């Protein structure tokens, strides 16, 4: 296990014993493996920087690097695609610790021989690594820390390198949206844009729902509009509505125009409501059943669906619409909890199970719905509009968002280590 920082500046010696120069940096091919192989060495001789390919390496130690050939190309070193310099682009930069779900700064890099080639195997984030590098080599080498992250468990940020670099981001998708969001908020704008660009639409949508308002607005503004629209479609309508509100009006209109008409309609409906109102927070996709439907019928109906709403805890019993009149909505009778369905006699009709439930109006403040949820120990409160139709429901999860704005704001804070 070699610490890369300790190699910097050591003499590079040719086969005939001549010193060619000192080690200036090490080139790795970042995308070639989850332990990237060393491509070669950048050697400095006065003002000149030359490149020695890894194949020409003879021996490597903290004292010197021996080259196995006498023929050296004196061409100036020029960086190529996929090449990252360890000392310049990795050490002292930030990376994402996937398992630790946090951002860390690389204090040193560990190299090891693996499959016949030197590879980057780990990143040292311990404070001892800093001390080791600051002190003269004689004293510093005694400082060895214990916080090493395997390179396979780290996500390198391409923006740390000054050139356009393609980096693989598959490991990022393993992280939960909440963790990703925290990291997106903590990074600089450029870095966070890089990460969001690497996520697929669904994951990006989930992540942006949790990212702070300011940052997500900034990200959306600089994104390709088609992509932005795709992401907005994947979000819950109320999250999309909140986000669109933070954007410039013209941009918001353009993005809405690019969205699927149905999705855009849902969002526009919500935008009609005030940001703090029930109407904005409510979910419009509620499960309904008629009073004469039996438990068995309802369960079969649910199973037949391709998708169920998130966190389904209740369904609403509504009056069967009059077939003669074309009614635009449902009239609420009451609520049946899903857990009731599981234990009830399969032939029991909904009318036997239904319970009365308080309701709210879309224009009421969300806080009011939150209070009802708490007071009556409900899992959801139905939302009834002026005409008396059931338009949606507010769940316990939404209530939390309303009751604990501080935490939500804090989570969005950019300060994070």
């Amino acid at each position: 296990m070699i610490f890369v920082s300790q190699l910097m500046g050591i003499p590079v010696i040719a086969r005939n014993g001549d010193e060619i120069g000192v080690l200036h940096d090490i080139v790795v091919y970042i995308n070639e493996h989850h332990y990237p192989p060393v491509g070669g060495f950048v050697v400095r001789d006065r003002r000149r920087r030359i490149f020695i390919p890894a194949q020409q390496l003879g021996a490597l130690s903290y004292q010197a690097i021996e080259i196995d050939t006498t023929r050296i190309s004196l061409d100036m070193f020029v960086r190529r695609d996929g090449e990252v310099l360890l000392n310049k682009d990795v050490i002292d930069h930030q990376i994402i610790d996937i398992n630790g779900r946090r951002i860390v700064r690389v204090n040193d890099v560990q190299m090891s021989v693996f499959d016949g080639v030197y590879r980057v195997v780990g990143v040292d984030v311990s404070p001892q690594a800093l001390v080791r590098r600051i002190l003269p080599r004689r004293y510093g080498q005694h400082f060895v820390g214990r916080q090493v992250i395997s390179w396979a468990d780290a996500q390198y940020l391409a923006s740390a390198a000054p050139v356009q670099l393609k980096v693989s981001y598959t490991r990022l998708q393993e992280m939960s949206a909440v963790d990703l969001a925290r990291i997106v908020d903590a990074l600089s704008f450029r870095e966070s844009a890089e990460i969001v660009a690497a996520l697929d639409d669904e994951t990006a949508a989930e992540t942006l729902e949790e990212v702070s308002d300011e940052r997500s607005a900034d990200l959306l503004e600089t994104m390709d509009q088609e992509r932005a629209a795709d992401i907005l479609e994947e979000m819950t309508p109320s999250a999309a509505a909140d986000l669109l509100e933070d954007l410039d009006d013209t941009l918001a209109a353009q993005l809405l125009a690019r969205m699927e008409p149905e999705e855009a309609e849902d969002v526009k409906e919500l935008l009609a409501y005030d940001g703090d109102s029930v109407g904005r927070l409510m979910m419009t996709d509620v499960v309904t059943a008629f009073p004469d439907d039996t438990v068995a019928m309802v369960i079969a109906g649910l199973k037949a669906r391709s998708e169920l709403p998130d966190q389904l805890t209740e369904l609403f019993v509504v009056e069967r619409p009059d077939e003669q009149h074309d009614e635009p909505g449902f009239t609420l009778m009451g609520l049946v909890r899903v857990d009731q369905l599981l234990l009830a006699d399969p032939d029991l009709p909904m009318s036997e199970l239904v319970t009365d439930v308080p309701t709210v109006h879309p224009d009421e403040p969300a806080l009011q719905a939150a209070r009802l949820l708490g007071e009556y120990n409900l899992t959801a409160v139905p939302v009834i509009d002026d005409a008396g139709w059931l338009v949606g429901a507010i769940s316990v999860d939404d209530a939390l968002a309303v009751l604990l704005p501080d935490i939500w704001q804090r989570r969005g804070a950019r300060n994070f280590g």
Partner: protein
Amino acid sequence: MKSLWKRWWPYLAAVGPGLLAASAGNDAGGIATYASAGAQYGYSLLWVMILITIAVAIVQEMSARLGAVTGKGFADLVRENFPIRATALIMFTLFVANLGIIVSEFVGIAAAAELFGVSRYVAVPLAAVCIWLLITRGSYARVERILLLLSAVFIAYVASAFLVKPDPDALFQGFVPHVRNDSDYIMLIVALVGTTISPYMQLYVQSSVVEKGVSMSEYSYTRVDVMIGTALAGIVAGCIIIATGATLHPQGIAIETAADAARALAPLAGTNATWLFGIGLLGASLLAAGILPLATTYMLSESLGFERGVSRSWAEAPVFMGVFTVLLAVGAIVALIPGLPLIDVLVGVYVLNGLLLPIELVVIALLVSNQELMGNYRNHGAYQWLVWTIVGVVSLLSLLYIGYQIWGAVAG
């Protein structure tokens, strides 16, 4: 309704970092220097203040630009673009210098308290605790708002300048550039530079810009804030010089501390001037005593990589809170040491700042002209020459100052 508020908010929200940092520049040491300048040389140093104010505006704008373009703080950038030993050296000297200034702020609080007849042993601990609570309990937004309110107190200095009714002709003479071959004059110029272009201010502006998440599209608001902030700070500094220049200078009264300046104004301008001066001193010192530990801790957490952020709770960022608390505590405790040669301490602190300033300016200038880092927002051609000229002049002055200090210590 929401969109109207959102349209105004960027302007209001952006008025923050520059204003705060610039206001904090008029702290105990600053006030002592400006008052000395006025007492010793009347209005003749006003032209220097104009040049210095322009220089500060340029330097602060560069810091803010660095923050907006890279989205990273000063310490982050130093860590990522300079060798580790250079980074360590810069951070260490910044830390020590800032700690010294924190001590000087608490000295200022003590002096202001005693102007109002409150013992320093009551005022200083009380101030330290209040600052700590304010910053650790409140969210960052609330902190900034409250500090902004406090900084409005510096209007008191502007009031002072009018209260003392300066003579218009003499005042005009002060704005005409003229250099005297007088070692004290040069030294005061250097001191003015040292206290006005404090390294920590640049750090704080950049950190604040990053904290607010200002991107280049929103940068114009920030630039306005920086300009306004430095202009206001410059005006306030000028007013202090005018106030003391009109009252103390004709009488030939020299001053040793800010408290002297306030006291000296009493028989000449009535108790109002003293009272206002005291409030201004207290406000500026409290503001700086809050900003400095925060800025220093941010700086360390960026370069060393521990959790940062005032908005986090104690449990989430123990190292950050710990360092911040220690800085406040040490500052307060040292300021309370009986018999401490306070003037020597204050002077020593600004010598160190003088040493540090050229280094910091060079670092900023290098970072801002870095193509890889700044892209199209880097300094171009003529502007870069201007910047290097400022760096050169300031560095020369700082070295002169140190030279005089050492010479004074050796010869005196």
